Each structure stands twice: as C-alpha cells, then as structure tokens.
C-alpha cells in the first residue's frame, strides 16, 4: 500500500543572485534587490516528500529518524549557516531557490534509506516556494 511521508526542515543561508553571463546593469535589472553585492539571507524551509509502500511491521514509509540523519548529513550540514554562492554546486549556477531546490533533490534522491524521493519543495519566504520532482 503506497503512501507518502513528508517532513519539513529549516535552514538559514545567504545568497546573492548574480551571473557573470550578464553585465552589472543587466544583473541589477534581472535580480533587483537580490543582486546586492553583499548578499542577503533567508530562513529556508525544505520539505521532503518520500513515497513508498507502508512497511506492514512498522507502519512506516520511511523511518523519520533515519530520514533526518540523511537530510542532516547531505543537506543541512552542507547548506545551513553558509553562503550558498560559495558552495561548489553554485560556482557556475546562480543559487536561486529553483536551483537550490533541484540541488537538494539531487543530493537526496539516491541517499534515502527506503522509499522514493517524490518531490522537494523549498520555501524561501512564507510567500514564495519552489518544487522539483525530478525530470
């Protein structure tokens, strides 16, 4: 019997939206306040949705403690209280929340203890969020 288990995590990080592919003026026009050279930060909420069969013995799609360990190790330790622009994943990739969402999905998709990663949602603020479910 397939069900889904979802879990929300919070991480705080800074970023600056800027690409060398555009001029300084074009960057300012494209990214507005987010192009501030000194960067700015968010409390991101990362929502992980795992799908799979409910184990008849445990009643679980995935053990939350094990999922927490994986997310902690692969996502939180990597991004929490960091400057996203300095992460190797964002050297040639603007750390928009779209790209952060996809990066989180890629970091987790083969690392889950069981079940399948169905979707990652990253909320940048209460009013905007991004979702990625793989290709």
């Amino acid at each position, binding site marked *: 019997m397939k069900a889904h*288990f979802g*879990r929300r995590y919070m991480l705080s990080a800074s970023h600056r939206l800027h690409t060398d592919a555009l001029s300084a003026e074009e960057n300012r026009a494209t990214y507005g306040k987010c192009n501030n050279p000194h960067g700015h930060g968010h409390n991101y909420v990362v929502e992980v949705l795992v799908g799979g069969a409910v184990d008849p013995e445990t009643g679980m799609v995935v053990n939350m403690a094990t999922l927490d360990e994986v997310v902690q190790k692969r996502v939180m330790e990597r991004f929490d209280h960091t400057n996203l622009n300095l992460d190797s994943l964002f050297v040639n990739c603007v750390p928009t929340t779209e790209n952060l969402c996809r990066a989180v999905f890629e970091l987790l998709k083969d690392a889950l203890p069981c079940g399948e990663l169905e979707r990652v949602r990253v909320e940048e603020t209460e009013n905007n969020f991004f979702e990625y479910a793989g290709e």
Partner: protein
Amino acid sequence: MIELTRRATFSASHFYWNDAWPAEKNEQVFGRCANRNGHGHNYTLEVTVAGQPDPVTGFVVDLKWLKDVMEREVLAAYDHRHLNLEVAEFAATVPTTENIAIAAWKRLEPVIESAGGARLSRVRIYETAEIFAEYRGEA
C-alpha cells in the same frame, strides 16, 4: 477539474509498538514513540476532493457537507481518543501518521463515493507542522 481541500483538527494520543517484536526492538525502531504510556498530538486532517464545479451551484462539493462527513467519519472516532486503545483499526496496526492517513481515507472514501459527485483525491495528516503523511488511494 478542480481540487478542493478542507482542513479539520483533532487531538489524540498514541504510541508505536509492534507486539511481534521484543521490547528492545520496539524501543530501537520507534524511539520515544514507543513509550507505552503514550503521548499526543494536535493533528490536522486535510481532505482533498476533485471534480467539476456544478453548473448551478458552482460547487465541487458543498463544503458544509464535506465538513460534516469529516466530523462524522473521522473526528468522531479519533478526536480526544487514544488511537491504540479506542480505535478499532489501530488495535493491531501501528497508528503511524502513514497508517492514520490510510485509515482516514478508508473511512471517507465510501461516503464521498456514494454521494456521486466529486471523488476523493488525497488525504493528508499533519502530526506536527513539520511532519505529514498523505495517501492518494491505490493507483
């Protein structure tokens, strides 16, 4: 097609325990949730139905009707109850968030189905603001 979602809250206690396992394994797998004295949550039940808006009323379903169905079929059985001890479907099934979502679906689906309008699309149960499970029926 339009999806329409209604939320309701209920408060209940539970613990996680599999009688087929020794105590040590229960404690190892379920951690703090294996405390046999139980613990509780304020759950949120989120029910999504899907269908076409009625050409006369503009409703996918009457929200008051859906509220009553949720209260009668789920909240009346779960609210202010000990799920392990007082709810039949958890006598031999661990009341994890996943299993509560499935059980709530089974309670709601026949009633919504027999009404002949919208179909049940998803049941989501929040155990806390950070933890939820959802069930969409057997695909």
